[in-house]
């Protein structure tokens, strides 16, 4: 059914999207501002992007962030996928509902609590805070998202495919790598991208678990802004927004392709 856009719907849409995206659009526009004053338009320029490239501290932070995101996303994907498989496949075992609840709980857990509890854990086991702790912390909360994405794919997975593989002589491990994984790959990649972007823009959990020499970009931006917003930060944020946007769009396209290619059970 195709409905026309009534003036009411159009207005609602306009207001909604303005509300959502006006701040971001402003930020992007001002990142091309010639003037040093954030609120005064001084003509178009890309000079702040150039400034940014010369800012050692910022680049360091970006490098740390990137490494943290890649490592934590990869570990979270492996763990999250395994968790999803167990939860969807393992049939009924005692307290299964409890387990699946516990995997999903961190999704709604306030970040402050996640961050704080991890911090306490790291102190308790005497792990020095630094990049490693941030990676571990990000892995912890991102793996829940991966588990959700992958298990939503697995529930529609036709298990007779795995039986067919076994029937043709494939061992369980062989079956996993040659049948299950290729088929759920789009969901796994989508999960990785989600974990990657989540790690990229996390401030709260990272600031709880950061240590010397492990300043991530969001932490750096936050502390820089406290000294005053510079157009350089705008430029950096614009770059970050682009990366995150590309990640999210790719993830959702992968999900779509999965449906379109008939990977779903008929």
């Amino acid at each position, binding site marked *: 059914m195709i409905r026309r856009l009534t003036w009411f719907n159009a207005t609602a849409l306009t207001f909604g999207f303005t509300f959502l995206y006006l701040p971001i659009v402003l930020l992007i526009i001002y990142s091309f501002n010639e003037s040093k004053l954030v609120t005064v338009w001084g003509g178009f320029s890309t000079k702040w992007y150039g400034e940014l490239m010369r800012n050692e501290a910022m680049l360091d932070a970006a490098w740390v962030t990137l490494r943290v995101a890649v490592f934590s996303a990869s570990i979270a994907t492996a763990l999250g996928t395994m968790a999803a498989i167990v939860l969807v496949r393992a049939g009924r075992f005692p307290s299964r509902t409890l387990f699946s609840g516990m995997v999903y709980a961190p999704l709604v857990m306030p970040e402050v609590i996640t961050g704080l509890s991890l911090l306490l854990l790291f102190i308790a086991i005497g792990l020095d805070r630094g990049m490693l702790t941030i990676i571990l912390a990000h892995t912890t909360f991102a793996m829940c998202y991966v588990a959700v994405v992958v298990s939503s794919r697995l529930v529609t997975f*036709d298990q*007779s*495919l795995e*039986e*067919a*593989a*076994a*029937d*043709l*002589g*494939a*061992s*369980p491990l*062989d079956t996993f790598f*040659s*049948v299950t994984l*290729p*088929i759920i790959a789009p969901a796994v990649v989508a999960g990785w991208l989600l974990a990657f972007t989540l790690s990229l823009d996390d401030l709260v959990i990272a600031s709880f678990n950061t240590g010397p020499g492990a300043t991530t970009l969001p932490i750096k931006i936050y502390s820089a802004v406290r000294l005053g917003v510079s157009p350089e930060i705008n430029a950096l944020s614009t770059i970050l927004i682009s990366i995150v946007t590309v990640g999210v769009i790719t993830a959702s396209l992968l999900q779509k392709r999965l449906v379109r*290619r*008939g*990977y779903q059970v*008929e």
Partner: protein
Amino acid sequence: MNEQSSTQKRNQQTVSGNSSTRFEKEGRTPIVEFRNVVKQFGEFTAVDDVSLKIWPGEFFALLGPSGCGKTTLLRMLAGFETPSSGEILLDGKNILPVPPNKRPVNMMFQSYALFPHLSVRDNIAFGLKRDGMTKENIEARTEEMLKLVRMENFAHRKPHQMSGGQRQRVALARALAKNPKLLLLDEPLGALDAKLREATQFELVNIQEKLGTTFIIVTHDQEEAMTVSTRIGVMNLGIVAQVDTPAGIYENPSSRFVADFIGDVNLLEGRIEGEAKGKHAEGNMLFAANGIETTFSARCPDQLEAGTTCWLAVRPEKIAISKEKDTKAVNQVSGVVDDIAYVGNLSTYHVRLANGRVIKAQEVNRRRVENREITWEDEVWLSFTEGAGLLLAE
């Protein structure tokens, strides 16, 4: 046409030769043997104490209503389910400890279960690659299989780019590729339309004859079971009700359920009056249907005592219908035509007897419908021979 006559010929051979009993006598090892196999899902018994022997080279059909345990039986054979009790032997060896990937059995799944991320060729080669064959051998065998199911031109397609019939052929090729001793087919033709279904049935029979593989096919289509198989096992509520050749099942059903399930049958309740007399009536008993004066002479393999309650089973096509009383007929009863079902080549007359029961009598339409001499509400006589009826205790 050719193919059709070949299957029929084969069926007749097995009827007369009855190779399975011969094998039994010769003390051969069955390729599959179920020994008192029980499968329970929680409280529910899906397969109830099944004992069954299947011989090498057979095309064995498992037939039965939905939910009677056919798939469960196959899945236990393939190794996807473990029996709650009992033994399953393959070539005389207990296979229960063997995991599915190590059993010399291949299965064609009801849903085909083709790997969506692999091409037709790779689907077929999947099992071969796990057999440690050389690359050349794998390629040669894959080509051979593609040719067998006539899918050479589709080798590069992915499963979602093919029709149901093509997928089904690929699934068959994939299951056959490893040259298994035993091929299990779970409703392989369920998704096909009638024409394609028939063509594929003959194709299956041809392939089976060419390769000599033992086939076990699950179906709930009795016509399909009759067409393709050498023997049929009729299942009901988890038990195997009867195992026999298609003709044996049709002509000598051992129970009311089997008689009713395979083909169309008239069942009349009554009791045994005593032994029948007559030239062709050896072993026959006299049967009195409840609420009718006349008695009928019918075969009685169960040797029921006089006075026992039982059922008379007669196939509609074995009942003749006419307007005049036949003076020579042994079994004869009158009634009124209630309804006539016309299906082109055949007409089925529904005749109401004095006791209110409706009997179906089937006639070939030699004349055009307009010239039919029997119509609604006519008083008619139904007759059948002494060999046509069968008395069943249960």
